[in-house]
């Protein structure tokens, strides 16, 4: 138990003194999480919308694949991305192995199936009659997509929170693609791993506490956005009314 107290004390100390190394790690973590989430949204939202709204062959297969993507093992993704990014490998020319950009790529690959799968299921939960009506009145594809995102916004922002959570706290791909280089590509999560490996449990817990704090703040902010406007629209059930 003393470890935990030591960790808490150390975390407060590190933050209070404005330790530049810690702030750097915090910065890398935020950069990775924000850019990986944005990249995941860029790919995952259109894919999720297509899978949720579309009526094409292979739609079920696509849904099965993104759902399987929810369980992608970070270590395996990290390994495959690293193999592609090594010098001399197909994407070696990008020269982003052992860089923050490389980590962003790996984390985005892990996070986009989360966005796609959750967006698809949120869109599927919107009454199809609404989309039929929009089509009947001449809505364009872009207008349909906007309608779907707006109607399913709670699920879509939930998908964003989940993607951010994955990008901020995964460690396997970070270590394999980024190399966990202290002062360069180390994130809060991989710093925990390093400190624990050194036997510095107190410092490990300190980084862990910082990571949890970051997650709480970001998830909290996104949740406020998700339920924006405060009050919740509620349908008033009335006797004698039935949906046909």
């Amino acid at each position, binding site marked *: 138990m003393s470890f935990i107290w030591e960790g808490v004390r150390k975390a407060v100390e590190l933050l209070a003194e404005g330790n530049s190394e810690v702030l750097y790690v915090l910065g890398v973590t935020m950069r990775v999480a924000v850019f990986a989430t944005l990249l995941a949204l860029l790919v995952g939202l259109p894919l999720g919308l297509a899978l949720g709204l579309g009526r094409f062959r292979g739609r079920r297969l696509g849904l099965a694949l993104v759902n399987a993507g929810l369980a992608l093992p970070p270590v395996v993704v990290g390994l495959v991305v690293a193999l592609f990014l090594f010098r001399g490998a197909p994407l070696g020319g990008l020269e982003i192995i052992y860089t923050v950009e490389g980590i962003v790529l790996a984390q985005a690959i892990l996070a986009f199936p989360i966005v796609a799968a959750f967006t698809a299921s949120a869109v599927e939960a919107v*009454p199809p*009659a*609404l989309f*039929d*009506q*929009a089509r*009947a*009145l*001449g*809505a*364009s594809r872009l*207008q349909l997509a906007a*309608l779907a995102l*707006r*109607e399913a916004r709670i699920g879509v922002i939930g998908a964003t929170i989940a993607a951010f959570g994955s990008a901020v706290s995964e460690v396997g791909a970070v270590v394999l693609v980024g190399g966990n280089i202290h002062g360069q590509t180390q994130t809060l999560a991989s710093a925990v791993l390093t400190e624990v490996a050194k036997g510095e449990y107190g410092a490990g817990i300190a980084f862990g506490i910082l990571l949890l704090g970051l997650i709480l703040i970001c998830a909290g902010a996104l949740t406020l956005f998700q339920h924006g406007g405060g009050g919740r*629209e*509620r*349908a*008033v059930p*009335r006797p*004698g*009314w*039935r*949906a*046909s």
Partner: protein
Amino acid sequence: MSAAATTVAAAEPAALVARGLAVRRGRREVLAGVDLELRRGEVTAILGPNGAGKSTLLAALAGLVPLSAGTLERRGRLASAGQEAALARRSVRANVELALAWWGTPRGARRARAEAALAALGIDGLADRAAATLSGGEARRAHLARVLAVAPDVMLLDEPFAGLDPSVRSELLYAVSDLLRDPARATCLVVHDRAEAWALADRVVVLLSGRVVAAGPPAQVFEQPPSPEAARFLGFSGELAGGEGVLMLRPGQVTLDPAGPLLGTVARRILFEDGVRLEVEAEGGRVFAVAPPPGPEPGERVRLRAEGGVRFPR
């Protein structure tokens, strides 16, 4: 009436012309040989039992289902309203403005047209309410406001009054009866019963098993159906076989009369709020009659008089 209609027809071609329309679902033919013309300024009601293909016909007219045969010719833009009043999770006004945006109405014109459509349907007071908080009847009005606001050349409505309480239903029927008829627009709606067709339509099309069995002005179709099967569907439930054919009668056309020419035995008696309905085994067939309560007991011999009805040759 028919002379005027002919003049209009000569002046302007119909907004939507369907010829020999057929639709298949797998091997089953759900629609066959449907001819239909929707003219501007006219309201056409499609009437038929469940499974007759009414909604399929509407979808086919909207171009939403592939035709296995026939042609569709349309002048102008078409808008349809589905059976379900599915509204977006926004205010009522925003829902109508959204519909105008889908239709392609310029942004600047949307607000005024939305307000006008809401006022026409009597729900301008609900404009700022969240759509999710509307009652069934209010949601249906908002749903219709969306389609009316875009001012299409052809408007198709699939059972606009389905699933509503009888009182809400008649209120809405009253509210829209004038709105539906617009000289610039051809309107076609699927309705559930004859009363709705009477109240709203200039022309009635009766669909049975995917085929048009009667078409024309309501008075003509309802009083002189062209075939026994159309008559049966339109409420001519009594049938009397005579020498030269069969006489089909509505319950209201058969009354108890001690001096009546028909003799029969009461088989069943059912109570209605406006009287009793009697099923009578008469010479030549079974008829239904209306009588003031309590009416004769089952098994009693009664004399009847029939007035009107339609006669079909054997």
